[in-house]
């Protein structure tokens, strides 16, 4: 058993994470929509590391397909990492429910559907790791992105419960909470340079936290303290703020 499954593989964090795991000796299943677009990345990783890289078509919103997706894997993965994420358009989502729903379904429902299946298998097997990339946006709802934030909050709570359930089965569940990351998802946002991490740095943090058996990791590390402060602001004050 040598494979790690990365879903949402087309995201920049996923690409960096894929390289990080391959570099450390793992073979890869990379799953996502129109996955053939990742042929160049797969080749890149093979040339760099001489590891196996398989591309698998997966639509996180096609819940019915998730069973057969997982069944088809002849060799089951050692662990799974979800980098699925859809920021969406907050303003549009406030009045257009289809946008709101896409945000919720991508960030929460889709991941839950797939993780439920994998969790059952890992629980039976009594080994494995499940890594969910959530977000600091899930720690507290803010007007600028609370639909995305609430979906990520759901995911964070789900992962926490899953961790609790799988503890006895010795399956690790890691919640990753990135802050600002310089990716395609954020390329049109004006992010403060000092607080913005490169995807490679996030990937290193994910790998290292997973290998150390951690439960929750903020990346970069200082977000833990930023969010600690944001969480203790009383609601009567917070509701008046623009952050």
């Amino acid at each position: 058993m040598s494979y790690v499954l990365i879903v949402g593989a087309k995201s920049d964090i996923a690409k960096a994470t894929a390289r990080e795991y391959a570099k450390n000796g793992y073979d890869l299943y990379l799953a996502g929509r129109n996955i053939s677009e990742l042929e160049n990345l797969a080749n890149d990783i093979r040339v760099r590391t001489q590891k196996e890289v398989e591309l698998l078509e997966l639509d996180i919103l096609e819940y019915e397909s998730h069973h057969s997706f997982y069944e088809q894997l002849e060799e089951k993965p050692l662990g799974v990492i979800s980098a699925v994420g859809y920021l969406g358009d907050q303003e549009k989502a406030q009045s257009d429910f289809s946008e709101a729903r896409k945000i919720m379904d991508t960030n929460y429902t889709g991941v839950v559907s797939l993780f439920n299946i994998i969790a059952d298998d890992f629980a039976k097997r009594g080994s494995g790791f499940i890594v969910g990339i959530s977000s600091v946006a899930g720690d507290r709802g803010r007007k600028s992105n609370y639909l995305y934030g609430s979906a990520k909050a759901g995911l964070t709570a789900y992962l926490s419960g899953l961790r609790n359930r799988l503890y006895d089965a010795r399956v690790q569940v890691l919640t990753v909470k990135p802050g600002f990351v310089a990716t395609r998802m954020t390329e049109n946002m004006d992010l403060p340079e000092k607080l913005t991490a490169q995807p490679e740095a996030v990937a290193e943090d994910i790998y290292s936290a997973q290998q150390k058996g951690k439960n929750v990791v903020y990346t970069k590390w200082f977000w833990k303290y930023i969010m600690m402060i944001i969480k203790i602001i009383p609601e009567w004050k917070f509701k008046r703020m623009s952050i």
Partner: protein
Amino acid sequence: MTCTAWGMYPKIECEKLHFSTKEALRKIIHNKQELIPYGNGRSYGDSALNHNIIEVKPHNYFLGFDEDKGLLHVEAGVLLSEILEHFVPRGWFLKVTPGTKLITVGGAIASDVHGKNHHIAGCFSECIADFNIMSAEGKIIFCSREQTPDLFKATCGGMGLTGVILDARIYLKKINSKYIDQTTIKTKNLKETFAAFESYKDKPYSVAWIDCLAKGDERGRCLLMVGDFRDDGKLDYKIKKQKSIPFNFPGFALNNWTVRAFNWLYYGKARKGVSHQKVDIDTFFYPLDAIDHWNQIYGKKGFTQYQFILPRETSYEGLEEILTTISKSGKGSFLAVLKLYGKANENWLSFPMEGYSLALDFKMEKGLFSLLDKLDEIVVRNHGRIYLTKDVNVSKETFEKGYPHIETFRQYRKKNKMDEKFQSLQSKRVGI
């Protein structure tokens, strides 16, 4: 957005242009004027700066490796460090590497970089099989020494002024250890330093750290380090985590006295005469890469690295005059690097020629540029030249005198309309 390079001087407002596909790059080239490709920002001055810079570093896919030939195909944004990380453990090393591994392959080609083995192996262009480049007209041109000799000679060392390099195939060299057997020779003055270089010139790698604040009889004293790879099969190379200089040091932190003290300690710690050490790749080739943002020790005004080369015949007198001038000025740095180079190649703007090159750092301060002008004058009088990759100050007249093929390069740019698209602050200053 503010853009700068490794010397943190100058800092200018610029637009960083990203492209995801070749079509997108074609559009950028079509729509914009005054573009310059930008890699990892490790050239020191203004050679990769302009109001529009094209970000090449995100294009960092490895494309293929032919194990039999040792031929590696990568996109231009791949860092040399990435190549080392994956290929040293498999017994491969760069044929030519500069003193930092944190540069892109595209940048290595554009600067036609060289390293401690220049006297044996030449410049980076020696290890290039071929590359693809997008021209001023948006065409992708396959370039090799044989098929497009002019484009090859213009692009290697051409400072990004001939187009945007997309990918390249480079030859690696076989090694059987991550360790180097190093010999350190401590000399007492410039005469001894030259003699040491001559007597160790068969060693594949050599470089000297020179104390340029030493005066009188001690002028030109150095630690010459020479070496070659061991053959012990130990290849478990890992990239070390960098230590970081988290903020700019205050400008006064480095002054004549602190630098003098450092030099005294550094020189003093080496054993007298000849000594032997076993060191790893990073210690030998990339000592400064161990510290992230070491450029910040010079303070927020930034610094420059002044690097020139003098032909062998004039090297001794020229260097003596330059060292005297620097020592008198009281400006100077702990990083002064001297090296004996091999023969020049055919590329039109490549820096190396047979002779001695000295590179030294100066922090930006009042009076620096007039000192550099003075040094320029000595370099020109001794038929030397200035390295564009480091430069931030050289005048058109001084620059031209050092590079005999400059007109060929200019005409070639003009004929292919490259000058209408690709320009840096430096290319405008020196009129190329």
